[in-house]
């Protein structure tokens, strides 16, 4: 079977699963599509059109694998404003143009506009969108339709509406409110129920089924028309012929106006942000661990949006909730997105009249719930945990977005973030000086060891914040997730929350796909909160004496310590005399050791050490991870190193290489040096030589009392550290056995 046939075979085999998953997704997409469209003040059917166009176009042209596309939560707020200012036909034109813009961004590979905004500002914006949805729909949910000018007024009137709902004059309105409250109850309780038959149908579909059955119950059993007030029923679901006949052509007459372009840019921005966040999140869910082609997906979404705009639909975006339902139900490729559209067409064709039996409050309860999810106080609490400055950014963005608008909100959010960074860093010029300068170096470490896996080293200078994070991200994107990566921040003075959060995502991704991603050099940086994503900066020495919050590496060290029967001390230790008799440190000054893992009884002592070479202006500060083992008996002074690593031992230049007879290969590959040649030659027994020959290279040095082992003049990653520990332990055992025989 050639690869192509094989591909088709796999595709066919996975097809039934994808059809099923597409069906389940369509069950949610139907009520959500209707609800989102109505929340946007657009005709309910436009939401379904959006989902159908999105499902067909993006499944054919897209670049992601298990995402579902359709109308999105985030866009509700923008579409309301677009329709209010441009009328429905004008809004369709704005949607079509924003699709064109998105397509262009995809071709220019600029789809990643979301990368340029600070994470807390995006969170604030999404929360504001949540509040806009919730504020508007809450009133309809309780049977109290109102029209106000600003988003804030809707929110402020919520208490009044709650009070009002108990005093409805019309009994039909009471029923409407009850339908709304029950539906909200279903949305809240459903995720907590763990019944596998109940879970087969998603909560929004339960609401649809229950409301339609209730309507039939009234009609057939009670013999009355639906008790819910007729104004609170979905109206105007056309059948297929009507949809085709009624297609409203976009009206481009506003194209020269400022308001038109304001809408277009808001639509494009939110569509790309929402899609990208979703694609990134869904990639993490993908059971086959594939990497989505983001630019291709953006292009497909742009194309779909253009078509949708012309057919009377809304912006097509990638949506996280429906995508995760897709993954959970066994969706494995884009065909599930296609089938979700296909089933939607069937629903509309066969059951469009049934949909008018759904009460509006029930549908709006679904939206109130999603709006609440976006803006829940838990989000704000989580952000507060990351840092006080983040909550200021979050709240500013949220308030500006609610009162002024989306674009102003996100821009002011970015500005406030920059300001916060300047205040925290107490330096205003710093960020401007380096913002346009390259600051990332990435290279593949070449150890000369053939069997070693790819290992990449990345070093970041100056600062790493939302302003220049894309530079680091571009480098990271070039690394296969199966590789080993060490990201070093020791030359970087300031790392912000946006970068930390995204890097954490990378770490997860690498772990999932079998790679290893470690962040080093943040131990000197401090943060105000213990949150792993908190902003970090280099702080003056005096403050270091305080308890600092642990970095991820430190936490891992603490975690692995008991497993190796070691104790962990993070604090600096200034008493480092025990290192001074090692020739390696002859020409160096040891400042302190820190991050110690030790066990006195077994004689194992692992630590990070900071030392300096040279003095005054020529001074270089180096940090490295080393292991000290103390075998039970006397050992001669010696230095053993890889042939060629002379500069490490240049202080020993006076001594010549000692040969161990009968081991020519060993003598050729290693430099062995020391004063007492006979002692050393006796010490290097057959077992020991064989041990060195068959294990990876380390720099090894004995001062008679202990043996110092390390590999590189930099901090070791956790993985390297474990290897070092293991090597040291085995070496110790080997030495103890041989010393025994030789004495």
């Amino acid at each position: 079977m050639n690869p192509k046939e094989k591909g088709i075979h796999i595709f066919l085999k996975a097809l039934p699963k994808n059809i099923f998953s597409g069906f389940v997704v369509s069950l949610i997409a139907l009520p959500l599509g209707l609800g989102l469209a109505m929340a946007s003040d657009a005709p309910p059917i436009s939401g379904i059109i959006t989902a159908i166009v999105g499902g067909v176009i993006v499944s054919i042209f897209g670049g992601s694998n298990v995402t579902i596309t359709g109308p999105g939560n985030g866009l509700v707020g923008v579409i309301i404003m677009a329709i209010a200012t441009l009328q429905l036909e004008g809004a369709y034109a704005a949607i079509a143009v924003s699709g064109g813009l998105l397509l262009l961004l995809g071709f220019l590979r600029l789809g990643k506009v979301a990368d340029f905004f600070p994470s807390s500002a995006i969170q604030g914006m999404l929360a504001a969108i949540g509040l806009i949805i919730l504020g508007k729909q809450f009133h309809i949910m309780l049977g109290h339709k109102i029209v106000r000018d600003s988003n804030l007024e809707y929110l402020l009137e919520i208490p009044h509406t709650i009070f009002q709902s108990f005093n409805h004059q019309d009994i039909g309105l009471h029923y409407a409110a009850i339908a709304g409250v029950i539906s909200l109850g279903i949305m809240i309780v459903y995720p907590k129920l763990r019944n596998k038959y109940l879970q087969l149908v998603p909560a929004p579909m339960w609401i649809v089924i229950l409301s339609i059955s209730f309507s039939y119950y009234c009609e057939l059993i009670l013999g009355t028309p639906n008790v819910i007030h007729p104004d609170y029923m979905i109206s105007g679901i056309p059948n297929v012929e009507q949809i085709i006949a009624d297609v409203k052509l976009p009206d481009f007459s506003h194209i020269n106006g400022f308001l038109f372009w304001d809408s277009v840019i808001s639509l494009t921005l939110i569509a790309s942000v929402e899609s990208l966040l979703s694609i990134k999140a869904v990639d993490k869910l993908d059971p086959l661990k594939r990497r989505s082609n983001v630019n291709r997906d953006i292009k497909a979404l742009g194309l779909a949006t253009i078509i949708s705009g012309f057919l009377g639909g809304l912006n097509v975006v990638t949506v996280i909730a429906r995508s995760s339902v897709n993954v959970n139900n066994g969706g494995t490729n884009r065909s599930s997105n296609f089938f979700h559209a296909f089933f939607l067409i069937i629903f509309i064709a066969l059951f469009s009249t049934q949909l008018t039996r759904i009460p509006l409050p029930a549908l709006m309860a679904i939206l109130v719930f999603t709006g609440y999810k976006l803006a829940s106080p838990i989000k704000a609490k989580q952000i507060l945990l990351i840092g006080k400055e983040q909550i200021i950014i979050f709240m500013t963005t949220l308030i500006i977005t609610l009162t002024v608008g989306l674009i102003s909100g996100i821009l002011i959010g970015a500005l406030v973030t920059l300001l916060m960074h300047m205040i925290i860093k107490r330096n205003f010029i710093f960020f401007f000086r380096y913002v346009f300068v390259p600051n990332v170096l990435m290279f593949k470490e070449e150890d000369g060891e053939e069997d070693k896996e790819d290992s990449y080293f990345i070093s970041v200078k100056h600062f790493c914040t939302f302003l220049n994070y894309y530079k680091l991200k571009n480098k990271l994107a070039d690394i296969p997730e199966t590789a080993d990566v060490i990201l070093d921040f020791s030359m970087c003075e300031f790392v912000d929350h946006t970068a930390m959060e995204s890097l954490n995502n990378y770490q997860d991704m690498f772990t999932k796909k079998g790679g290893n991603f470690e962040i080093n050099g943040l131990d000197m940086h401090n943060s105000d909160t213990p949150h792993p994503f908190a902003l970090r900066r280099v702080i003056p020495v005096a403050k270091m004496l305080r308890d600092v919050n642990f970095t991820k590496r430190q936490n891992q060290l603490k975690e692995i310590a008991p497993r190796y029967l070691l104790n962990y001390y993070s604090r600096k230790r200034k008493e480092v005399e025990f290192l001074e008799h090692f020739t390696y440190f002859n020409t160096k000054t040891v400042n302190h050791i820190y991050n110690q893992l030790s066990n006195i009884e077994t004689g194992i002592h692992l630590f990070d050490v900071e030392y300096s070479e040279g003095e005054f202006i020529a001074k270089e500060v180096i940090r490295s991870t080393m292991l000290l083992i103390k075998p039970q008996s006397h050992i001669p002074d010696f230095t053993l190193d890889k042939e060629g690593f002379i500069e490490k031992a240049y202080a020993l230049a006076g001594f010549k290489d000692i040969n161990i007879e009968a081991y020519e290969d060993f003598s050729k590959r290693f430099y062995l040096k020391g004063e007492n040649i006979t002692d050393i030659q006796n010490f290097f027994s057959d077992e020991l030589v064989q041990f060195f020959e068959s294990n990876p290279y380390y720099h090894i040095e004995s001062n008679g009392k202990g043996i110092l082992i390390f590999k590189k003049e930099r901090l070791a990653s956790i993985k390297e550290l474990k290897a070092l520990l293991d090597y040291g332990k085995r070496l110790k055992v080997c030495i103890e056995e041989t010393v025994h025989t030789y004495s």
Partner: protein
Amino acid sequence: MITTHYNTIGIGIAFSPNLKANIYEAARLALCFNARLVLIHVGNRTTQKEVTLKEIIAPFKELHLEYKVVYELGDPVEVILNAIKVKKIDLLVLGALQREKLVKYYVGSIARKITRSASCSVLLLIKPSVERVPCKNIVVNGLSSPKTEATIATSFYVSHKLEARKITIVEEISQQKVQVKVEDDKTLRKATIVKERLRLREESRVKKIVTQIPEDYKKNIRVKTQSIFGRRGYSIGHYAQLMRADLLVMNGSNHTSFWDRFFTHDLEYILRELPTDVLVV
């Protein structure tokens, strides 16, 4: 094989706090290379200045250092560029601040201006020291450029004379050469393969250059090659800083050929923020 010899070493001096350290460095270099030392000062000749210089250089006089002091008035950049030609200077030593700041005498953009247009090699010192700090680790560019061969040869010549122990030749490969944009797993695999091929090609090119270096110069020196995919001119500086290189050797910027215009630009990253002592060949 072009081999450089530094027979005359020049140093631009200002009576700054770093004067002694700068002269010590230059004088030590002159002794290492067996060269004459020309001290160029843009300013008046005064007895006090003469006495100070004499005092500083005295210990080297005992070691038979041949030296000469030139006093001249005028625009510092022009005076020094002119002196290079007149005195046939092969290597000019200048003290420089690590980061370019507002105009300061010598210690600022003057050093950079000279570097950009000097016809000889220029050594920019950011941390001159009175005591000798051994130069152990040298990083040199291995760009694919007609000049690289001479630059690598020079760096071997320098490291031989200074008894350096390690030379790392860095081939910077610009991202555009890869031509494959990483978008998904497939393009990533493709890009990784293309990169590996480019890396091997660059490495064999550099190895070929190294084989032409006289054996004598290669004795006791460990040669390593490292290819880096990234912004040319920037990456090597960052790498040199990360690896704590004692000297970074870069191609110079004569305005002679089409290629050089690119390298001028590359050098600007280094000049903007000197990662370590820099020798521009």
